[in-house]
């Protein structure tokens, strides 16, 4: 069976400077893959090329057998790619629960007529969405905040809202951009347990992270980027012992 996500020779430059060059990556179904690298390694660019926020200059992104690198991001989301950004990309002016419920939009069937006439099918679907949203809030530990305005939550929890919102869309591939940054130790442990849990459910996760320690405990495999290229790939233990990885993180010269 083909991998859920395959990236081939992916390239993207900004003003002539390569952010990602000739990156290859394969993520099989059910795997928890981490992409790590020092600042400026091209992690975020790669993340946005897969999520659809950026278009590549060359190369391809294949998801579940479809070439998606030219798809707009909403189409990728509908195909089952859930995205959680590092920054707070929430819907201000809506409650936490509404933020999560709207995440189901990609899998909702009722159209405008159903909504306006309040057809039975629409009402049933509305109840299902509410149920799913409450489950997702419970999973992310945000149930107590459900009816609060999302603006009132601290930044770390707003990221939790994004995660619950992504889960409400029943994704098959979850993209997480530095989910642990800015979290306290206890919050990190909770997040790690949650991600572990999602993997157990069969969700494929691609985790972009700066923090090697956080990733080492979680990931099945780790891909290391430096200066826009893959410099190592393997289990966390293998990668941590790799000289080039150590050198990249310490900023030392690498003799290839």
């Amino acid at each position: 069976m083909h991998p859920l996500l395959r990236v081939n020779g992916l390239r993207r430059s900004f003003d002539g400077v390569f952010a990602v060059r000739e990156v290859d990556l394969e993520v099989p179904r059910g795997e928890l893959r981490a992409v790590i690298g020092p600042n400026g390694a091209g992690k975020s660019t790669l993340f946005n090329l897969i999520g659809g926020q950026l278009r590549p200059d060359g190369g391809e992104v294949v998801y579940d057998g479809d070439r998606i690198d030219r798809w707009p991001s909403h189409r990728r989301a509908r195909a089952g790619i859930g995205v959680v950004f590092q920054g707070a990309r929430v819907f201000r002016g809506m409650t936490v629960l509404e933020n999560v419920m709207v995440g189901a939009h990609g899998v909702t069937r009722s159209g405008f007529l159903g909504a306006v006439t309040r057809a039975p099918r629409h009402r049933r679907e509305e109840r299902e969405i509410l149920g799913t949203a409450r489950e997702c809030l419970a999973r992310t530990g945000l149930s107590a905040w459900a009816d609060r305005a999302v603006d009132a939550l601290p930044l770390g929890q707003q990221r939790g809202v994004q995660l619950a919102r992504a889960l409400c869309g029943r994704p098959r591939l979850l993209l997480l951009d530095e989910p642990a940054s800015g979290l306290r130790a206890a919050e990190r442990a909770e997040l790690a347990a949650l991600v572990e849990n999602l993997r157990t459910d069969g969700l494929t996760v691609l985790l972009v992270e700066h923090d090697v320690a956080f990733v080492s405990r979680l990931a099945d495999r780790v891909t290391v980027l430096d200066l826009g290229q893959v410099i190592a790939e393997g289990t966390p233990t293998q990668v941590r012992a790799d000289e080039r990885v150590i050198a990249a993180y310490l900023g030392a010269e690498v003799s290839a």
Partner: protein
Amino acid sequence: MANELAGYVITGLGTGCGFALVGSGLVAIYRVTRVVNFAQGTFAVIGAMCASSLLSVLPHGIAEPLAVLAVALVGLLVGFVAIGRPGTTPQAALIVTLGLAIFAYAVVVLVWGDQPRSFAGVPGAVTVLDGRVQSHYLLVIGVTVPVFAGMALFFGHTDLGRALTACASNPYAARVIGIDVRRMGLLAFAIGGALGALAGVLLTPVQQITFDSDVTLIVNGFAAAVLGGLTRPAVTLAGGLLLGVTQALVAGYGNAAHQTEIALGLMLAVMIGRAARRPAALEEPT
């Protein structure tokens, strides 16, 4: 004296409902697309003209909803022209809608002529608190109130409504969760078209409509919508009603020639008062 007052107030509420409908159409479109739709008054004019034509072959109660539906399609068309091309800025789209509104004059004059048009509404008059009011004004109010209640329900309690609200709040994040922001913008234009047409269809029996009636409607509708920062339908309703009642009172007790100026002056005073009290109210939420 007292009986006159009740009559003026109800007449004003009826007219104000029209302003509020035009204004809420502006709000529906602005929230999702950040485009101020200058063709909003045109929707009302075309709706009224369509209804007057349809009424020559169809009975009341069928012709009017059909006209509203037809203008929803016109709204969709305006949306296509204004925001259909990816990458069009809201400012450019605003100019496009202004151009379309002027173009619509030509179309309306060509199809329906330049003479005022009207058609019969609910006949007769009723007595409210000793004041005589045309019954049709009660229909205007009786339709507008459920429409606003329905909109609140739609935006707050349906997936599509939430998706529209999400686009209004953060288009970038909306795309990421699978919302086609452009399609939502087009839907908003269709909703705006229907709301504008509803205003035209409801008001025509009590106020004749000509091809350039859109100016009065858009000026008042815009004033009502701006009161709610162009984003809040409920405040728009309040603003529309306030404008309508003020104008009716000015026309009734004073000089009808100055009714619009005085009402808009009052609106300006309300907005300045609000801004002074809550400076943050004018800040754009990001």
